[in-house]
């Protein structure tokens, strides 16, 4: 397998970085008045929750080696985060649960 390096993929990597930055900087650089519409404010309030939820479900179930460990680890993550545990705790616990399920059950 050829190693992918700066010289072989530099342009692709630069395109990724510039596209990402362009998306982030455009609103902050060009838009500087306060919005009045309550609907738009509400829409923006909900957007982060909706984006992260749509990215997570259902893909999280298939993000480990098997569906069984994916489902059980997801349930563990949901329970822990419902109890307001931190990001690190939830992420690491889910990985550990998935590994444990793979070793014991599957």
């Amino acid at each position, binding site marked *: 397998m050829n190693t992918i390096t700066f010289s072989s993929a530099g342009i692709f990597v630069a395109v990724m970085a510039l596209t990402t930055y362009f998306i*982030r900087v455009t609103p902050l650089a060009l838009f500087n008045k306060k919005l009045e519409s309550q609907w738009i404010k509400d829409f923006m309030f909900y957007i982060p929750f909706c984006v992260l*939820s749509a990215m997570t479900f259902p*893909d*999280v179930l298939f993000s480990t080696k098997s569906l069984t460990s994916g489902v059980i680890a997801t349930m563990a993550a949901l329970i822990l985060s419902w109890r307001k545990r931190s*990001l690190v705790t939830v992420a690491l616990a889910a990985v550990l649960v998935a590994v444990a399920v793979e070793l014991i059950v599957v």
Partner: protein
Amino acid sequence: MKEYIRGLLSGKSIGLGYIPVSFTFGLVAVQMGFSPWLAVFISFTNLASAGQFAGIRLIEGGAPIIELCMTTFVINLRYFLMSLTLTQKIVPKMPLWKRCIMAFGVTDEIFALASMEKEDVQFPFFGGLMTLPIVGWSFGTFLGAFAAELLPPIVQACMGIALYCMFIAIIIPPATDDKHILYSILIAAAFSCIFKYVPGINIISQTGGGWSMIISAVAAAAICASLLKRKPQNNQTKEVSA
């Protein structure tokens, strides 16, 4: 300076949380054949979890540059909405160069913490807030890229769930105190499942998932904004206590 330190401390847990996820990125990138330093460079310049995973998959598969550009654009389009929301949250009349620096640090987690602030966000606070996450994200990639082989294969195969569980840990805690947030999460998840599984409609998710995510999120947020109105004047971001 005081504001910068306060931001630095607030960003500490995000920086730590990024390490297992970026570790996974470094690991996956090197397994695909990327040189370790290139993987670190991608993390440092993108600071974008899902977008990076999709990007290296396309580069490795030899996709044309336009497809890489479009996919990166769609997956990261949520940052546009977050930046737009931040324009409403930062102190008035912040100079352009400061805004341009802030833009670099707009991630899901940093945005969630910044919008939780009770007062308008100042530049030093946001600068502090983004510092440790950038360090953690790059350092985690470094660790994953150089230490990948030391982990048992079974652990490597299960690390991918860390990214999603971090998203869960951001959105669920605020939902426990606020039914509207919970409904918005459920509606978006339902749309996302429909786009994935309902025959005919699932064609949307077969191009990498970027479009189905954007449509699900925008539709769910629009429904919630129309049916589940927030109280005006009330500091809306108070509930986001990730």
